[in-house]
């Protein structure tokens, strides 16, 4: 009886212990799941990307208005009235070709008058010579000196008048006609017959066809390295449907803060100036130069450039991911990507984005797929 | 006789079946490694070395640290194990009296066995540190403090921890032995006018001796295991007085001195074989005496 009682007691104690044991183990199981989940949930989430080992493609689009490189405004210097216009706007001109003929009658008359004056002066000199001879023969010393002075003065006047006459003649010849100074195009013709010269701007605007046309574009500093004076580029001219592609040459560069002004010169007979010129360029960097990384993953702090990568560490929970700050050397970049030349391995997972604004070196994080 | 042989032959086949899993695994993980160890101990290098006979052993026996470790192990085993056994026997005798809460007390004595090593180490530190609790109690009593772990006292501390952990197990074993001694032996002795001491030596001890073999074996095993705690509390190089063979072998492993390690291991095993054979012989003689 006693024994039976004892056995029952042991049995119930064992049942209790078994229950405690089961509760203990299942409690621990639940806690394990719970605490692991809790820990993982509280970690900063990061999204990563692996850099690509490809060439960096930098593209550039820019346009500008074509303008002649050199252009001269031609007008009549004396402001004469226009007699005839021999050129039309847009027309090709040859060097020396007459462009505008001016009314020169007035100038011719003045010239004739001046010529008459010279003749009159010669006559006057002849009279004075006679007086001089007379004075010499009279032996009057005073009269002789006076006659000599008058004669000299008259001769000087004659010289002056002759020079004037020459000038007038030259002016007359040059001003009578406006001639093209070089081969080119008459860009603008303001001259109107009957009006005086330069009444509405220069009579004729001539662009040199030898020096060609140029346009300006602004290039971001990041790709300006690809431009050099003398480098040849493809330039698209005109509207989309009937654009022609011609060769252009970089002819000038000028730094402006984060941008660079670049002048491209184009020579082509079709060009009349004023057309839209378009640059559509792609620069492909060397494949071996580095790893392509999204620019947003690259951080700068002072002079230091770095990326955050994920480092797998062996931990009690299996491998855990930790943040590691890696200083890098960067190269070229385009609007979205940058070449990292040194500092990371090609297969390093780089943190692109994180749920917290800041991640710190060594921090454990959760890497999102 | 013929029948007997037949039985043996029959049993042999069956035995192979029963033993196979154990023997295969046992050979792979214990026997063959030990044989390899013996071979290494006779070579000058473990990889492609040549046979050098007992040179490693000579070198080992000339090494101070080995001798120190061997001496400590021997001392600890030959002192702590018997003391612990004696203590357990005493407690078993007391427990075997008619007392209250016997089962509870028995459980309490066995419980230290289940305390995790970490706990042991933590409390060991708290108690026996230079600034530890034991020194603070001594201080209250006006005794100056003792650097327990960095003096000869370490051996004593180690023995206490060893006794504390293993006493309960031995008590259980002795209690069983005590309960198996027929009561009438004592009654007869009492009638013959024997005193308590005489009863103890003539009856109790005699009947407990067969148990001793087992108790000593278990005591040996656990005396080697105490290394774990010592290692955790004092690291690779504890105070000289508790620098055991296991420390020595462990350090040889870390410094990759395979020859010294294996030679030391072989010497230790030879000692064990001698010891166990001795115990066997003693026990056999004793049993035959008893009969």
């Amino acid at each position, binding site marked *: 009886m006693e024994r039976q009682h004892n056995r029952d007691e*042991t049995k119930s104690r064992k049942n209790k212990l078994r229950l405690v044991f089961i509760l203990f183990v299942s409690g621990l199981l639940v806690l394990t799941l719970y605490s692991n989940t809790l820990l993982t949930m509280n970690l900063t989430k990061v999204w990563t990307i692996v850099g690509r080992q490809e060439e960096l493609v930098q593209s550039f689009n820019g346009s500008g208005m074509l303008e002649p490189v050199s252009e001269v405004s031609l007008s009549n210097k004396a402001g004469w009235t226009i007699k005839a216009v021999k050129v039309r706007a847009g027309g090709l001109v040859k060097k020396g070709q007459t462009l505008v003929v001016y009314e020169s009658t007035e100038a011719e008359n003045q010239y004739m008058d001046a010529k008459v004056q010279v003749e009159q002066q010669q006559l006057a000199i002849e009279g004075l010579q006679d007086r001089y001879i007379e004075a010499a023969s009279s032996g009057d010393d005073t009269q002789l000196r006076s006659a000599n002075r008058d004669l000299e003065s008259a001769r000087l006047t004659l010289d002056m008048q002759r020079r004037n006459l020459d000038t007038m003649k030259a002016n007359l010849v040059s001003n009578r006609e406006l001639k093209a100074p070089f081969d080119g195009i008459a860009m603008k013709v303001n001259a109107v017959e009957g009006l005086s010269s330069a009444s509405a701007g220069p009579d004729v605007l001539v662009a040199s066809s030898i020096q060609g046309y140029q346009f300006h574009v602004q290039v971001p500093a990041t790709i300006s390295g690809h431009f050099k004076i003398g480098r040849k580029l493809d330039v698209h001219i005109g509207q989309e449907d009937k654009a022609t592609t011609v060769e252009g040459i970089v002819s000038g560069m000028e730094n402006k803060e984060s941008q660079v002004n670049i002048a491209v010169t184009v020579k082509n007979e079709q060009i009349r100036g004023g057309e839209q010129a378009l640059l559509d360029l792609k620069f492909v960097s060397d494949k071996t130069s580095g790893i392509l990384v999204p620019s947003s993953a690259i951080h700068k702090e002072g002079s230091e450039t770095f990326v955050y990568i994920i480092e797998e560490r062996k931990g009690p929970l299996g491998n855990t991911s930790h943040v590691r700050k890696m200083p890098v050397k960067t190269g070229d970049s385009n609007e979205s990507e940058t070449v990292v030349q040194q500092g990371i391995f090609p297969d390093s997972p780089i943190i692109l984005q994180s749920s917290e604004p800041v991640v710190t070196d060594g921090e454990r994080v959760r890497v999102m797929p | 006789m013929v029948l007997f042989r037949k039985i043996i032959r029959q*049993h042999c086949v069956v035995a192979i079946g029963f033993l196979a899993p*154990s023997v295969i695994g046992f050979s792979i993980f214990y026997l063959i*490694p030990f044989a390899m160890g013996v071979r290494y101990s006779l070579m000058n290098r473990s990889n492609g070395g040549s046979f050098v006979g007992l040179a490693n052993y000579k070198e080992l026996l000339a090494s101070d640290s080995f001798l120190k470790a061997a001496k400590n192990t021997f001392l600890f085993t030959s002192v702590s194990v018997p003391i612990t056994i004696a203590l357990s026997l005493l407690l078993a005798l007391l427990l075997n009296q008619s007392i209250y809460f016997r089962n509870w*007390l028995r459980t309490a004595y066995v419980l230290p066995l289940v305390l995790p090593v970490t706990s042991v180490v933590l409390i060991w530190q708290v108690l026996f540190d230079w600034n530890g609790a034991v020194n603070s109690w001594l201080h209250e009593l006006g005794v100056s403090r003792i650097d327990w772990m960095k003096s000869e006292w370490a051996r004593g501390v180690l023995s206490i921890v060893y006794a504390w952990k293993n006493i309960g197990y031995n008590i259980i074993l002795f209690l069983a032995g005590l309960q198996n001694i027929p009561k009438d032996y004592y009654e007869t002795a009492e009638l013959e006018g024997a005193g308590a001491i005489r009863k103890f030596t003539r009856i109790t001890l005699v009947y407990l001796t067969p148990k001793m073999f087992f108790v000593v074996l278990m005591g040996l*095993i656990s005396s080697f295991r105490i290394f774990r705690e010592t290692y955790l509390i004092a690291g690779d190089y504890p105070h000289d007085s508790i620098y055991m063979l296991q420390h020595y072998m462990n350090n040889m492993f870390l410094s990759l001195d395979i020859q010294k390690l294996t030679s030391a291991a072989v010497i230790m095993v030879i000692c064990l074989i001698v010891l166990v054979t001795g115990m066997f012989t003693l026990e056999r003689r004793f049993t035959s005496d008893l009969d």
Partner: protein
Amino acid sequence: MKVVMKKGAITLLLCLLAILLLLPILISFTNSLMTEQEIGSNYDLIGAMTDAANGGEDAFVNLKLIPDWVSFEQYYNVLIETPTYLNLFWNSVYMVAFIIAGQVIVGALAAYAFAKLRFRGRDQMFFVYLITMLMPFQVTLVPNYIMAGKLGLLNSANAIILPGIFGAFGVFMLRQFLLSIPNAYVEAAHMDGAGHSRIFMQIILPQIKPALAALIVLLFVDYWNMVEQPLIFLDDDFKQPLSVYLSVIQQEARGVGFAASVFYMLPMVLLFLYAESYFIEGVQTSGIKG
């Protein structure tokens, strides 16, 4: 009256001793309920060199049994805040479960052969097992390491589990117990025409329950606390059993150490209490014969 006095006196003596023996468990438990701060202030002198010359004559750790403030902070840390402990705890469970299951099965089979069968070389073979059982782990450290490397077991739990399964202790313990079962049982069954496998399954197994319980408890206690083998064979921290991790961290985090120890101790205590009667019977019986 005199008998009662004597009974009481011995009981008192034994109780006092029991309390002394249980003190470490008590300390572990009460200290695990202290706050990290309290633990810190109580024990920060451990390892510090103070002496009279430094004016630290009276400076000692403050060993207390009752917390100033009962707090579950350490338990929160161990069980919820840091999943490491629980994760490693399952490593321990995994390894120990396989070792125990394996060693019990393999050991029971071999023990039967050693105890109940007669064959040539039996006693010599058993002697080899016995010696191996006594060898400390360090004896076969190097060859074991090389062997594990050859078998591709390094840094894998199998490097711990497999040698554990084939440990000699189970064979020894069960053989001792089997010796106490009279051969007559086996012989009688044999006469009835039962094969050895049937005898083993139907007669032996049901009878060795206490020994199995004792073996399971002892193996559990031993392997639950293993430190050296995992330290040598496992490189990855996350594969270690909790016992290794606790022994590594206990220097810097004493408070957590106490809580973790208590929580680590619980399975052992529960198992022990559950199997106590069997355990005691098993230990006692296996110790009867030499």
